[in-house]
Every structure is written in structure tokens, then in C-alpha cells.
């Protein structure tokens, strides 16, 4: 299989595009804020003091570097060598903290006093609430009504951390609608609020900035792989909703021979089943009807229950450098239990998608080395899974 052009990930062009994807499609009110954010981010990233403060927080507060874990039992079961990048071991339980600490420090540097965020599974919301508590900022998180119900634990965590959680009641009442509400809030509060977007999506500079903040995990994984394997793995696999954990780990291997695979939920497979469209600030693959109305995604995983995808993933798919596959909710439920039983690691439902794909494709992966980004831990999902599995038991 062709890997496309083997290059490291490129920065977007002046208009914020990766190939033909990306851009800055937001109300005029927000454009000055986007331009200002781009400028401030570039300055901060070039500033040694900012970088060392962020590095310090990432190591002393978030617990980086996260380990690379060999999975002997699962490897034996599947017939391929499986390694996990343990982002589940970060403070707050997922990779989201990398981006949030970066954005929160940047927001503070820009003189903003309030962090605004959307959340699906609640992991990004919890991470944002955490950073706000740490830096003494106000925090408001929008979450869809459906997600509030299925991720109760994270709602409580956010409130405990001092954040206000607001319910998004419109549309599908999931991540897409939480983003709509967060954007409406931002339009009204742009002077004091920084919109701490949780994935590699939205208007430029977000997809690029969020990727940059997650490159730390890809860089670590590359070094750890070289050390452990003496080379890069054959495949690097990650789940994709908006695609932040995937872009983080892809960034470490895009310039290598490793095959990059993004795994989408079958009910939210924007790359797999979507066509290019514009929503939430950028042009990217999108599930939409023939008139351009955005369709509602449907996934067991609140974090991936989104009809769009970050623009750089659309570009990577278009150029052939990464490929995108999908798995069903049933396969995910299976994988959730498989990793728990085999390795004593309960994954979040999101990375369980990556595990599900590897498990399903075991035959074609025989003898290969597969690195999976375990982007988050499953504590938040056990309530929901208890219900799902009990129902199954009764059948």
C-alpha cells in the first residue's frame, strides 16, 4: 500500500489551509480574535520562557512523558506485537491536557480571564476546568444534554473543579451542538474569553495550534519506539473524532515508513462517508445531506460522536499519507472488554475504537508491530458500560 508523500506534517498556508482543507469560516465578530490568537501563538511558541513554563507543567503537573507499554497477552492473542502510548496515564486521564495547558497559558498571556470550552465525553472539559483551576481563571464548559447523561462522572468532576457546565439543548444535543453553543458564547464574550477548543478543528489557527500542542506525545512515542524497537512500528493507529490524539501521534511518524491509520466510529465516519463541507470554522470532510445540512452522528462514544473531522485529517486522507477506517459500536464494546481482560488496562471508549480495528484486522496484521495511541482511560465510561453489558447479559 502506498504511503503517499512521506514528509513530516506541514504547517498550513497563510489562509490556514492544509491542501484544500481548513480556512477561517467564522462570523466576522470573531475574525480579529482569530488573527490575534494566531499572532500571539506564534510569539509564544518562539518564546523560550513560555515553552519552558509549558514543559515544566507538562512534566511536573501532567506527568509527562507518558510510558510506552508492551502488551504481551494481547499480542499473543492477536498475533501481532501491540504497543500502547499511555496517554491515559496523564493527569485528568487523557491526552487532552497537553493542548489545554498550552492554550490556558497562552490565554493568560493574552490577558484573557475566562476559558470557554465544548466537550463531548467530558475529557476536554475536565482538562479545561483543571487548567482554569490551576491558573485561577473562570471556566465555562458546554456539553450536550445526551452527553451529560452518559458522562455524569465527568460533569461532576468539572463542577468539583469549579467550572460552570452549561447544557446544550439544540439539535442532536451532543458534541456538535456543544460547539455551536460555545461559539455563540464566544461571539458574545470574545473580549474576555478565550475559546479553548478541544480538537484539531475550528478556524485557523486552531487546527494547527492544537496539533502543535499535541506534538509532544508524537515526539515521545517516536523516541520510545526507536529505543524499544530500534525502528518505527509498522503501523500507528489512533481513534479519530475531531482527531487531536491521532494528529499528535501521527506527527511523530509522518516522516517515517510507518503506516498511519485513523479509526472512526461507523456512525460518525466523516472521512469514510462524508464529503467536503464547511462547519465550525473550517472546510473538511463532513456528514451532510444533499442540501448541505449537517447530519447527526451516532456513536456509543461521546468523544467521537461528531459529524466532522479536523481539516488536516481530510488532507492526510486526500494525499494518501494516512488512511481512515471505521468500526461499529459492537466491535468497540468487545475491544473495551478485551484490553481490560488481557492487559488490566480499561481504555476509554474512544481509543477502544483503535483497539477494535486492530483486533478485527488481526489476520492482515500478523507478525507486524502496531503502536496504538491509548488516548484516555475508561473510568468515565464504566457507568455507561455497566448498563450496556448488563442488558447484554439478560439477552
Amino acid at each position, binding site marked *: 500500500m502506498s504511503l503517499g508523500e512521506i514528509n513530516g506534517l506541514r504547517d498550513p498556508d497563510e*489562509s490556514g489551509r492544509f491542501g484544500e482543507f481548513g480556512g477561517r469560516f467564522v*462570523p*466576522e*465578530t470573531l*475574525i480579529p480574535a482569530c488573527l490575534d490568537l494566531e499572532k500571539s501563538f506564534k510569539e509564544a511558541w518562539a518564546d523560550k520562557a513560555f515553552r519552558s513554563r509549558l514543559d515544566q507543567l507538562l512534566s511536573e503537573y501532567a506527568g509527562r512523558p507518558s510510558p510506552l507499554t508492551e502488551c504481551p497477552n494481547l499480542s499473543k492473542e492477536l498475533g501481532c506485537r501491540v504497543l500502547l502510548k499511555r496517554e491515559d496515564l496523564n493527569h485528568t486521564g487523557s491526552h487532552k491536557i497537553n493542548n489545554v495547558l498550552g492554550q490556558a497559558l497562552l490565554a493568560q498571556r493574552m490577558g484573557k480571564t475566562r476559558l470557554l470550552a465544548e466537550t463531548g465525553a467530558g475529557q476536554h472539559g475536565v482538562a479545561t476546568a483543571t487548567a482554569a483551576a490551576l491558573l485561577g481563571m473562570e471556566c465555562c464548559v458546554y456539553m450536550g444534554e445526551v452527553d451529560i447523561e452518559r458522562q455524569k462522572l465527568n460533569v461532576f468532576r468539572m463542577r468539583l473543579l469549579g467550572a460552570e457546565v452549561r447544557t446544550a439543548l439544540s439539535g442532536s444535543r451532543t458534541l456538535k451542538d456543544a460547539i455551536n453553543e460555545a461559539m*455563540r458564547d464566544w461571539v458574545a464574550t470574545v473580549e474576555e474569553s478565550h475559546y479553548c477548543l478541544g480538537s484539531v478543528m475550528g478556524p485557523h489557527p486552531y487546527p494547527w495550534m492544537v496539533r502543535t500542542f499535541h506534538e509532544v506525545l508524537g515526539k515521545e512515542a517516536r523516541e520510545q519506539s526507536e529505543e524499544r524497537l530500534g525502528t518505527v512500528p509498522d503501523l500507528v493507529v489512533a481513534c479519530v473524532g475531531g482527531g487531536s490524539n491521532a494528529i499528535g501521534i501521527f506527527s511523530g511518524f509522518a516522516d517515517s515508513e510507518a503506516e498511519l491509520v485513523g479509526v472512526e466510529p461507523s456512525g460518525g465516519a466523516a472521512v469514510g462517508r462524508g464529503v467536503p463541507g464547511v462547519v465550525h470554522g473550517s472546510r473538511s470532510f463532513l456528514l451532510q445531506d444533499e442540501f448541505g*445540512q*449537517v447530519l447527526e452522528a451516532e456513536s456509543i462514544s461521546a468523544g467521537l460522536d461528531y459529524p466532522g473531522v479536523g481539516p488536516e485529517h481530510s488532507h492526510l486522507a486526500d494525499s494518501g499519507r494516512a488512511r481512515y477506517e471505521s468500526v461499529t459500536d459492537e466491535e468497540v464494546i468487545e475491544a473495551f472488554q478485551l484490553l481490560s481482560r488481557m492487559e488490566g488496562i480499561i481504555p476509554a471508549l474512544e481509543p477502544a475504537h483503535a483497539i477494535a480495528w486492530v483486533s478485527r484486522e488481526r489476520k492482515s496484521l500478523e507478525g507486524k508491530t502496531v503502536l496504538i495511541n491509548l488516548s484516555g482511560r475508561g473510568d468515565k465510561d464504566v457507568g455507561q458500560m455497566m448498563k450496556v453489558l448488563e442488558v447484554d447479559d439478560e439477552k
Partner: protein
Amino acid sequence: MSQTIEETLVAKRESKKKSLVVYLTGGLDEHFEATVEEVSASGADVIEIGIPFSDPVMDGPTIQRANDMALTSGTTPISILDRVKQIESSTPLAVMTYYNIAASMGVERFASLLARSGVSGCILPDLPLEEVEPWANAADKEEVETILLAAPTASDERLSIICKRSRGFIYGVGLLGVTGVRQELASSAIEISARLKKVTKLPVLVGVGIGTPDQAVEASRVSDGVVVGSAIVERMLEGGGPERVGALVQEFRTALDETTF
């Protein structure tokens, strides 16, 4: 073709009157055509027809609700424009929708469809200056006026560039926020009007947060008029029929006409 939006609003200004642009959600119910005609007869200078989009990030609860109702009842961009085509109204019409509706059809096709449906102008609130060229060029070719929004957050320099690219009028965003009726008129509505008047000869209309005739008069002290949306849509949602909507438009019209500016 009848007068363009710009010609209409400039003529209004020259006659020392203030302009009233009325927004209403397209395809909301079976009274859609009658409502447009009633609004026209009640004194609107331009009528903006909203084509509902699934994710209207610039709109507040009222227009969102109307949007959802229209979409749920099966309204599509094509069905709205088909109905618009049948409307007998001497008032110029504009369409307001979100960019993906135009992008999914293709900007050339969308522009041509608007022109063929008798629509003179178009507002796409999530298509800022940086991204507007492909659409605006297609619209120019079809003589569809691309009306741009100008917000309080922009620098004077940016306001001036936006005004140069805007056609029809310049839509001053009256406050930091999404569409919807507010208790009081924001001081930013006056400020943005004054800043825009300094940099452009285009008609300057202010919208977002203009919910009552008094607020319309207040905002028009500096601007050339107002855009009223949520208040009208609220009236549509109450279900009193076209006459009740027309009566509200009449109140705005009378307030603007009877004030000495």
C-alpha cells in the same frame, strides 16, 4: 430587473428617510408567501429571507427555533427559492443563510439560482472577508449583491476594507453577541454605525439586538436604518398569521417615519 438593494436604500437615504430591513425565516409555515407580501406592504424596504441551516452559530434561540421548525417540516433551500420565485413583491429580497448551503450546491450554481429566483442580495454570516472571494465573485457575475457584516471588534482599517467589498449595504453588527431581542439597545450599536459612516458611502444599517421600534429609532440616529429579525420571527412563531407580522412591521415603519432625525 427592478431596483437593486443599494439603489433602493440610497434612494431612501436621499429622501431623508430611514431604511427598514426585515428578516423572516423562510419556509416556516404555509403562510410564507403571504407573510412576505404582507411585510412588503407594511413598509419594509428590503426583506431578508432566512434559509435554515442545521448549525446556525450566529443565531440566538428565537431564530434557531424557527430554523428547526422549518427544517423539521421538510423545508429545503430549493423549496424556499421555488416559493420565493412565485412571490409578487416590489420590495427587493435578500437571502440570509450559512456558507455550507451555498458551498454544497457550488457557489456559481447558488448565485445563479438566487438570481433566477428574483433574489437581489445575499448575506452569509460565517463567510468573513478572508474567505469571501470565491462566493463574492460568483455573486458579482450574477449581479447578486454580497452584503458583508462589520463587527465592533474590527479595527477602522478592517472596517474600511470590508465596506469596499460589501454590496447593497453594510451590515453593522450592533453588539457582541448572536441574534436576539435585548432589553436595551447596546451602546455599541451607535458606535459601530458612527465608525462605519466615517469610512463608507454605502448605506449603513445596524442589526443584531434591535428588537423594538424605540430601539430602531435610537439606532437610526447615526445609521441609515436597521435590520430587524428576531422580533419579527418571534411574532411569526406566535402563529397570528401574516397580518399580525405585518402589524409589527408597520409599528417599526411608523416609528422610523415619524421621528425627525
